[in-house]
Each structure stands twice: as C-alpha cells, then as structure tokens.
C-alpha cells in the first residue's frame, strides 16, 4: 500500500458518509462496546483468575475476585525446577539480540536495495522477495542438522545468529519501502561533499529512518518473545528455556493442580507485549496498515 494509507490511518476520521439518527449512533456504540467486552473478557478473566482463590477459578464467571491474593505469582514463579526468572532472562536475551540483529542486518541490506547501484541488484531483490514466500518448514530440517553439527543445539545461537544474517526478509522489505521515500537529493548532496556510502547510510539514512527502525524493532521483539516453535526445537535443557517453553512445561506438569500459578505466569508472559501495545500502538497499527503484516 501507499504512503497515503500510512497518513490516512492516523488522520482524523473522515466525516460520516451519511447522516445518522442519534438512536442509530447509540445502537452502534452499544454494539461496539458489547463486542469490545466480549473480546476482552477472556483476557480480563485470566488476570482475575491469577489472583483469586483457587476454588473460584472453576466456579466463577465474574471478573471481580472475592478476595485478592498474589501468592499464585510466587508459587508460579518457583513452580518448576528452574524459576521463571531464568526463563524471563533467557527470553529477554534472545529477543534483545534478535532486535539488534534484525535492525542492523536488515537495514544494511535494505540500504543496498533501495539506494546503491550494482550488478544483479534486481535479481537479488527478487530472490529476497522469494524467500518471504517460502514456508520455513522447507529449510527447517537441514538448518537443524547444520546447527546440530555446529554444536549449537541447546544454545541460543540457532535462534539469534540467523537474525544477524538478515533472515527475516520481511523487515528488509519494510525498510526498503521506507528508504525509497527519503528524498534522494539528501544522499546526492552528501555524495557531492565526498561522503561514501557508509557515511550516508550511518549519518543520513538511519537517523531519518527511526520510525521504521522502531517498528521493525518492536515487531522483532514481540514475535521473538512469543515464538514457541524455534525454542521448542533448539532448546531442550530447562536452564535454556524461554518463558513460552516454561509455560508449556508448566501446563504439562501441573495442569490439574495449580491453575492459579499457571494463569499468574501466563499473565506475566503477556506483560511486555502489552507494554508495547500500550505505548507504541500507533507504530504497530501503522506498520500493519502499510505492509499488511499478519499479526
């Protein structure tokens, strides 16, 4: 989609297409509020289940607990042989390195595609788009064999190193689109002044691209934080588990015994994503509207 979309999505809403009676307006709002409540109800119920007495979890459909008790958070945190502190730390390290890798490697490639002229550029650009279409299942097994041979299984390397090789082509595409919108006169003027491509990339492109870099960073973080499949395959030692793997182990080990602890840890695992939602909502929504991201 075009730049027009990007500005229009956050611009004030257009005037209503036709006049509406006040009653119609009230009905629409009533419907939307009811729908909003239905959407949020499971989430709110989970948060309330994480602090309510255990016997209420399976009997109460209300959102307000009869008494508030934070002990499930403590029970859940230490509910497995390895604490959730460790899982959270592991998740943060992987997600943090992924953000750095994606921002650096994808912006380098995007700069080359958007601005530099070199033989085969269009060919490689087409290849890059092609990699976005291929389901990762095709490369999964040979990659696993490769990382196994390198001795990387049970370390974070298989999850992090590919990001430094710009394996998330989607972000390259996102950045190329943005870089193309930066006026070429800026780099041409810099070139006249004797700036090489590195300086132009570092001093002009990156500082002007903070919105797209932030969007890529936030989505990298959220997707990596939520990722289950990668850690499931590569991390088998509980000390290396991410928070998602920890949750899964928790379900399997105590599904019938400690629902309070399970919901406490589930709620906790959503906090970082919720934080980004709260503070960077505009970037997220623009990112989706302009590129059609899946989530």
């Amino acid at each position, binding site marked *: *989609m075009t730049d027009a979309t990007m500005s*229009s*999505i956050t611009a004030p*809403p257009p005037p*209503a*297409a*036709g006049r*509406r009676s006040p009653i119609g307006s009230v009905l*629409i*709002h009533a419907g*939307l509020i009811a*729908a*909003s409540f239905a*959407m949020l109800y*499971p*989430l709110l119920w*989970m948060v309330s289940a994480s602090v309510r007495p255990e016997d209420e979890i*399976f009997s109460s*459909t209300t959102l307000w607990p009869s008494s508030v008790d934070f002990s499930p958070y403590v029970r859940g945190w230490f509910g497995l042989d390895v604490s959730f502190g460790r899982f959270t730390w592991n998740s943060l390290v992987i997600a943090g390195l992924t953000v750095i890798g994606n921002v650096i*490697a994808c912006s*380098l*490639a995007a700069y*080359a595609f958007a601005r530099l*002229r*070199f033989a085969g*550029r269009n060919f*490689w650009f087409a290849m890059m788009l092609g990699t976005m279409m291929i*389901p990762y*299942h095709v*490369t*999964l*097994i*040979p*990659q696993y*064999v490769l990382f196994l041979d390198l001795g990387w299984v049970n370390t974070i390397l298989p999850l992090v190193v590919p990001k*430094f*090789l*710009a*394996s998330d082509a989607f972000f*390259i595409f996102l950045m190329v689109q943005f870089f193309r919108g930066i006026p070429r006169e800026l780099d041409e003027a810099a070139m006249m002044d004797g700036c090489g*491509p590195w300086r132009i990339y570092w001093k002009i492109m990156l500082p002007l691209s903070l919105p797209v870099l932030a969007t890529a960073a936030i989505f990298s973080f*959220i997707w990596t934080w*939520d990722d*289950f*499949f990668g850690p499931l395959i590569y991390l088998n030692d509980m000390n290396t588990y991410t928070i*998602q793997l920890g*949750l899964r182990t928790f*379900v*399997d080990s105590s599904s019938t015994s400690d629902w309070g602890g399970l*919901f406490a840890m*589930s*709620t906790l695992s*959503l906090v970082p*994503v919720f934080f980004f*939602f709260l503070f960077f*909502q505009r970037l997220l929504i623009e990112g989706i*509207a*302009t590129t*059609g991201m899946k*989530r």
Partner: protein
Amino acid sequence: MAAVQDSAMAVGRGAQARPAAQGRFAALWTKHGAGYMFLLPWLVGFFGLTLGPAVASLYLSFTSFDLIRSPEWVGAANYVRIATADPKFAASLKVTFLYVVLSVPFKLAFALLVAILLNRGIKGLTVYRAIFYLPSLLGGSVAIAVLWRQLFAGDGLINSLLAQVGIEGPSWISHPDYSIWTLVVLSVWQFGSPMIIFLAGLRQIPTDMYEAASLDGASKFRQFYKITLPLLTPVIFFNAVVQTIEAFKAFTPAFIISGGTGGPINSTLFYTLYLYQEAFGNFRMGYASALAWILVLIIGLFTAFSFLTSRYWVHYDD
C-alpha cells in the same frame, strides 16, 4: 563507466597488463563493491540458511534419515507412502483444510463488518480499534493457548457461562467433533489485524463516490454492494491470501491445546504438528522433509489458484 573503459584500454596495451588489471578490478569494486558489502550478511544468510537448506531438504525428501546414520537414498518411497499408505497424513490434511475453510472466512467477515462499523466516522475510533487489535497481538502466545485450554475444558469458563442459561456443554477440547472449533474460535478472535488493513482500505475510497450515489438515490445497501465491496476487493483478496497461508502454517495453539498430540483422535492434528512429530518426535527427517515439500506445493498451488481466479472478481482501478 569511463573508468572501466580506461582500464580496458590499458589492458590492451599489454606491457602494463598487470597494474591495469588491478585498475579494472578497482573500478569494478568502486562501482559494485559497496552494494555487495552492504548485502553481504544477507547473501551469507541466503545461501547458508535458505537456498542451501532448501536444496538439502529436497534431497533429504528422497532419503531415509534419522540424524544418526547418513541419509540413505530411497527414491520416491517417502512420497509414495504419503500418498498411499499414511492415514495420519490424510487426517492432518483434512484437519488443516477444515481449519482453513472454517477460520479464514469467519475471521475476514468479522474483520470487514467491524471495519465498516468503525469507518462511519464514529467517536472513539482509536479506542475501539485498539481493543479489537489487542487479541491479534497477544493471540500467538502460549499464554493465550493455555487460557483457551481452560476456557473450553469440560469444567471451563465457557461451560460455566452456558450453565447459567441452563445448557450443559461438553468438554469441547476433548471431544473430536468440537475440538477443531475451539481453534477456529481462537483464530476468529484475532480478527484485529485484517480489520486494520480493511480500515486502511476503506479510507482510500473517495467519499465523493458515496455523495454522488446518495444524490442519485442509491440506498445504503446498494452503495455497499456497488461501491464499497468492489473497491475493497483488492484488500479482501490480499487479506484472504495472507490469512490462508498463515492458517496453513498454524502450529502453537494446536500443540498447546492438545498437549502436542494433535488429539483427540487426530482432530487437532494440524499439518505442521504432524510434520513436527515426524521430524522431532520420531526422527524421520527424510519423511518430514517430503511432508514439508508437499506443504510448499499446497501453499504454492493455492496461491497460484488465487491469483488466477482473482482477475474474475478483484477490481483494480486502472
């Protein structure tokens, strides 16, 4: 360009061939080198992590390979077995198609309906939009799948709600007829991101078209069918393709809700879950590679089919 010609002439002068060759290299480097330097990380990844593995996977799909012994060439045996003698493959394909066919239309219908309501210039648009988008952002996590497992359990929240109106619900997740529906509901609950794309598309439709239609006396209903829907078909097409491909690749919810088994009676055995079981449960890496290539084939055929049929229903204003 001039530099390249200069160095080419220098090569012709024979005596200075060696320094001239260096000159030509330097010229080529100045012209193309920077591009390749910037592209280097991606190029390494492309060959090492995408192209190489894809070729290797194609090879492995014709072998029997258990990670311990070297791959043993078996010809098309994997594919033959998949096509003729693998009831779990058939079951997983059926479950996956069912999931795609049930979840994508409902999800897109909800997304479009809510987007149209929100696009009527109502107050509080940004708040509603944010609320409806939140499940899309959170929905892929294990926490939400865990929550879903409780919601649709025999003694879960949904049945508690149903009990209040006098209905005794089954254990949704452990009944083979209903378990897939819990996953469909989870997917539809995440209609927020296609909704945002629909909203962006609706904003692109010029309002004067509606004004002209109103003046001509066209009803709201007629305006929707004659203006909104046709002009939105490119966005509907885009959303349908993206969501369908995503649905084919879904994994986490089925894994968590069924505890990794795809049960009860294979009723939540998503294709990707079966592939995972074969590769990392049974270590049949060759067989799983063949399954992966069949998935690519299915997604590729579906995409090609969508693009071929799109010209009959997608309206491009050019």
